[in-house]
């Protein structure tokens, strides 16, 4: 039976063409060059297509991400055969697969959302339908529509990979492609629809005057808890879920959930564990803003408004994802020589430091070369777009092009595949719930809480030291 790309990513051996950090640096330089060129062509407000309006460009950016996740994670590169994946030149492979991802993206956005849903279901998915309303300009009609479509993508970019990473494709994991891909696509699209209706639909329902009481809950049910009627409250935790899925998959190697032996218990623990970790991030990053900038004031604009603070939580989370993916894709998930908890902790610390550096560098300089707005909080300052655009390029480079040219793809032998699996299992087996482990965990819990307290106490002073942009 044809395996298409099933386990292709695990079963390929990427061989460095040069020793040391040179391949990673070459890849970084190459992908940043592609990033900047494509940013200028598609997104930059000073460039050619100027899609960074911001929602229009963001919509395509998010859906392109989903397309690649669908093609690689849900469908295992189906209908492309394994031999084609292994023998085709990475440049050809990259071009073909990228073009296909863009074609599906356009069909989905223009055909399914704007054409089908927008004309036969919910008017706000189609700009032309919105323009029929009195007083709505074509620009904002397009922006509202793009916002709705991209929010669907944001939810799907959490749930689609979560089903693969957390639920391990179950209960369809033994099914061949494309049946498995379509099954997971159906369930994740269905779940995304439900999440969309209870998170973003009420946001869309109050975009119009008077509030659309008859079709959406108004004011939205989260108003008192989140201190805003804006759906950005949900954008925040959903973005955190998206980030945590990839952290679990890459730098955390699914630890500690992979210690659970029972399949279904492990799957559900991972799925809901991702949500719980994301919620912890969601609340902490909001609190961090309160500690550094001061308490949010409902009704105000920009950096002090709760709705923007929630949005910024998602933005901060994305800064964490960028170094995590770089470490995983181009640094062979360094380090690997210690036990799994030590490896995971080291990578997490490295990524945290890198995320802070990237955050500072972004806000200090992005307006100088990306055409974005200076400052943190302008509605048109959307760091999620350039960061996800870069991530998209890395995904295309890593998944579709085998990290060419700094690496060469060689299929692993059956022996190597077996050895890798044994090594991974040995890492898991190395963690034993001995009395010392349990004692260590108890001490660790206390240290963790202490670390949190110290961080929270130190944050205001730390922020004062780092003068990113003039504060007021």
């Amino acid at each position, binding site marked *: 039976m044809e395996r298409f790309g099933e386990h292709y990513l695990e079963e390929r051996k990427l061989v460095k063409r040069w020793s040391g950090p040179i391949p990673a640096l070459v890849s970084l330089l190459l992908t940043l060059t592609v990033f900047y060129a494509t940013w200028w062509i598609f997104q930059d407000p*000073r460039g050619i297509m100027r899609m960074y309006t911001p929602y229009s460009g963001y919509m395509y950016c998010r859906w392109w991400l989903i397309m690649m996740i669908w093609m690689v994670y849900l469908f295992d590169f189906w209908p492309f055969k394994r031999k084609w994946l292994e023998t085709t030149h990475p440049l050809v492979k990259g071009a073909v697969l990228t073009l296909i991802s863009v074609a599906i993206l356009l069909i989905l956005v223009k055909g399914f959302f704007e054409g089908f849903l927008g004309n036969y279901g919910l008017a706000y998915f189609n700009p032309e339908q919105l323009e029929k309303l009195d007083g709505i300009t074509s620009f904002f009609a397009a922006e509202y529509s793009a916002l709705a479509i991209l929010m669907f993508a944001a939810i799907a970019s959490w749930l689609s990979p979560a089903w693969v990473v957390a639920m391990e494709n179950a209960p369809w994991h033994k099914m061949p492609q494309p049946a498995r891909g379509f099954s997971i696509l159906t369930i994740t699209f269905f779940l995304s629809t439900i999440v969309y209706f209870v998170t973003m639909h009420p946001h869309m329902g109050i975009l119009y005057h008077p509030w659309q009481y008859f079709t959406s809950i108004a004011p939205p049910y989260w108003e008192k808890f989140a201190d805003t009627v804006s759906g950005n409250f949900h954008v925040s935790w959903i973005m955190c879920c998206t980030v945590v899925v990839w952290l679990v998959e890459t730098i955390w190697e699914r630890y500690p959930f992979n210690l659970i032996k029972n399949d279904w218990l492990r799957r559900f623990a991972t799925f809901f564990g991702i949500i719980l970790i994301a919620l912890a991030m969601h609340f902490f990053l909001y609190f961090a803003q309160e500690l550094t900038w001061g308490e949010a004031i409902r009704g105000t604009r920009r950096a002090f408004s709760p709705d923007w603070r929630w949005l910024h939580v998602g933005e901060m989370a994305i800064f964490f994802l960028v170094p995590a993916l770089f470490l995983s894709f181009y640094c062979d998930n360094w380090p690997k020589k210690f036990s799994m908890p030590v490896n995971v902790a080291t990578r997490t610390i490295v990524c945290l430091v890198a995320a802070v550096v990237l955050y500072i560098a972004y806000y200090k300089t992005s307006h100088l070369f990306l055409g974005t707005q200076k400052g943190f909080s302008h509605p048109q300052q959307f760091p999620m777009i350039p960061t996800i655009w870069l991530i998209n390029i890395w995904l295309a480079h890593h998944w579709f092009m085998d990290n060419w040219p700094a690496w060469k793809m060689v299929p692993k032998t059956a022996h190597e595949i077996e050895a890798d699996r044994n090594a991974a299992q040995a890492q898991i087996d190395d963690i034993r719930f001995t009395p010392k482990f349990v004692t260590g965990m108890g001490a660790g819990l206390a240290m963790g809480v202490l*670390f949190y307290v110290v961080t929270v106490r130190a944050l205001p002073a730390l922020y004062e030291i780092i003068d990113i942009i003039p504060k007021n």
Partner: protein
Amino acid sequence: MSDTIKRRDFLKGAITGTGIGVLGAMGAYSYSGARKALFSKTERKMTDIGTCRSVKVTNISETSWFDNQTLVGDIKGAGGLLVDQYSYNWAPFGNGNGLGKGSYADGIAKIKQYLPHDLDKAWEIAQENSVNPDNAGGYSCLLEVEELDGNKRKFLLDSGWSYKWMDECFKREGIDKMLENREIEALFISHEHFDHYWGLPVTLKYDPTITIYIPEGFYPEGKQYIKDSGHTGKLIEVKNGLCKQIPGMASYVFPIPIICRVYGEQSLYFNIKDKGLVSVTGCCHQGIIRFAETAYNEIKYENDQCHGIYGGLHISPFDDWDPKYDDLVISLERYGFERIGCNHCTGVLCAKKFISQGYPVIEGTARFRSKDKAYLGNGDTITFG
């Protein structure tokens, strides 16, 4: 089991526990009510800016543009809200190359020789080379501050956009004569946006010596425009924060990013004897609530009362909407404004929502191309005090 293995097990457990402990604390405490104990208490500075008896605002023009669809269509066509305003190819900086392909240097080169003495000619050239020049209007108002001793002092806030439209408005309200007679002490520019600032030569036509206050954050093109417009008076770049002007009047510069590549906005505070604080804004990009909160934290004012507000409140300038604006409509009640004189970028839709909410919005007369009586229109006045 050897000691080494035991130590390694302890370490693995400790690292795992630390992660769980951190995440658990993050989730349990970070959004709990207990977290508020860690918020720093802001000490009110209570800066004394003095008091004045009253301030009268004459709305010279609040119609910055006449058709939303046209303006937003231009913005969309040029690449969106982040595109540099000088590259839209709007008047007066049109270079004839079409939407999104303009530049300050090209545009000013065509009209500089006529500034500020022959604005008819300058605008005629601009019309030939610009995109939708007839959609340009402008924002500007006259402030008449009565001091406690009865002395009255006049200031302009902003100078609009279209030379043609603003000249008509200045003449309609007698601003031209006031400027010629040097009755107006200074021009405060709220921010660098086209509709507040590009009409600068109209003010300078009648008084090139007038003192100009601009907020910190102007781009080089904006500063050059002052020179190119023929200004011969004093130019003061106001630093971020509070700046006392005359007894009972202060300006405040907010360092905020604004669409169309603009940075920083300057607004005005007045402390009216026995009434309270009056806030006057150009566009209030900082947000009306932050404006009020800043006053609360920085300034001492009569009765600790927010008495009134005038100007564009920048809520839905294009009659667009966002749930965060509902947050504002719902929250404004807390601040207890007694008189709200809004217009311009507040948006008609928002003014109507304010009225539905029961706020004391002062209605206008909808004359001289203002759209709706829901807010103060062109030629309308409001007096605080």
